[in-house]
């Protein structure tokens, strides 16, 4: 299924104030692959993610998703294909109740009310939050908000799942549930995180970004155990691999 390939060719991005956040990033992610994205604070992880679904457009270079190049005309289509889970669940959940929030995407896709209902139920069931369906978001715990935020994206049946720091603010149990959930998804996944154990658990491939460039790209097991490489990037060995 070649149409789920995500490809970046020499992508540059500068913010209006002149900060160069991405300086020539190229990679290719195949269908069904899980890729962890990590790097020091300010290395450009979030900027990179925002370039993947048209929240930002590269100043130079090409982003293409399943052979469709990302530009202003294809933006809507790309947004449907790339499900984006934002770092802060409070920003992601903007509707007054969980149901309406999860339904927001499907409604905008123009589905019938019955189809919307079905999508919402399925998505909430996947993340184990069906019982929260009528709650307002401000009455959910942080872990619940996170799971519901994932459901809002799942309800749109995306081909590719992009997540920005999915496990920050989660307690260990919620984090473990999230990891199991992510492992269960067959989607192509791109997960930006500093939680290297999470990347090690969920992703088979890992990309390290440094100053807007790719510092390393390879199998997660290999990269995340390379102590010198990690330390050069303000990272350290995953906790599970550290000797005490």
């Amino acid at each position: 299924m070649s149409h789920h390939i995500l490809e970046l060719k020499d992508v540059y991005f500068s913010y209006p104030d002149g900060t160069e956040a991405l300086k020539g990033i190229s990679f290719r992610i195949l269908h069904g692959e899980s890729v962890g994205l990590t790097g020091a604070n300010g290395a450009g992880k979030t900027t990179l993610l925002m370039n993947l679904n048209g929240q930002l457009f590269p100043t130079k270079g090409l982003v293409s998703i399943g052979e469709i190049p990302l530009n202003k005309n294809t933006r809507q289509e790309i947004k449907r294909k790339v499900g984006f889970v934002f770092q802060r669940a409070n920003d992601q959940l903007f509707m007054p109740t969980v149901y309406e929030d999860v339904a927001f995407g499907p409604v905008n896709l123009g589905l019938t009310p019955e189809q919307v209902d079905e999508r919402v139920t399925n998505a909430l069931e996947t993340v184990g939050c069906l019982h929260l369906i009528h709650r307002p978001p401000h009455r959910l715990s942080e872990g619940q908000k996170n799971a519901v935020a994932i459901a809002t994206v799942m309800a749109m049946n995306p081909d590719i799942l992009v997540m920005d720091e999915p496990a920050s603010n989660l307690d260990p149990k919620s984090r473990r549930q999230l990891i199991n959930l992510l492992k269960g998804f067959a989607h192509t996944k791109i997960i930006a995180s500093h939680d290297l154990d999470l990347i090690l658990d969920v992703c088979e491939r890992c990309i390290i970004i440094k100053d807007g460039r790719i510092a390393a790209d390879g199998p997660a097991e290999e990269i995340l155990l390379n102590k010198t490489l990690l330390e050069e990037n303000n990272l350290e060995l995953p906790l599970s691999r550290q000797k005490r």
Partner: protein
Amino acid sequence: MTFDSEYFNIGYLDSLSYKDTFVHRLDPRVKLLVSFVFILFVVSFPKYDISGLIPFFIYPVFLLTAGDIPLRVIAKKVLVVSPFALFIGIFNPLFDTNVLLTLYGISITGGWISFMSIMVKFTLTVSTALLLIAATSFLGLCEALERLKLPKVFVIQLLFLYRYLFVLLEETFRMLRARDARSFGKKGRDIKTFIRLISVLLVRTVERAERIYQAMLSRGFRGEIKVLRRHSLRFQDFLFALFSVSIFYIFRHYNIVNILGETLGRTLR
């Protein structure tokens, strides 16, 4: 009144609206319209009429008891806003010095009576408005407004207000705590710091709005938001509306207090 207690107060009024009583189950449109009609009836009374207003207390009392809402909460909020009404009527006794009646040798002027009438009207209308909010979920009210043809832009603004009020309060709360943790005595609590806090809060809000907008775009937002319809009119809604409006009408055209007094007087005689 500290910020913390106010925060939980708002949350409390919100949590009251999740109860499940007869009043809560009524269609929000009906509650909204009946309460509106109620307020119109109350303010339509002439300025010297107090006794005619008294029976109208039955409506807020009904909402309070049937809706299982603690009196203290509502009474406190009415008290907080009462100075406004107080200042509207406070000069009436000075300007209007016609003696209207004499009770046990004390002459009561028209000014005092109209002042009392303002206070009674104020208590009736404000408590009803508060009870309406406490007995109807905010979402229900928004739905009602939308279905009563209020422009959708306003309704959506209200929905976002409800969604992010708590987020914003929490943010403010955290900033104030951070300030208090590092300010000793008066220093750090002055107006200058406060202005800076407010401006930081504004910038953060704008940034958050930007992120929310991106999240909306990412899920296919193209300028349309659907407001979910949860309620439908049932027989008891019509019954409630008909019953309450006719009671208001009777109260408005017959002075129940006088009639009761006269019949009581006759039977005692």
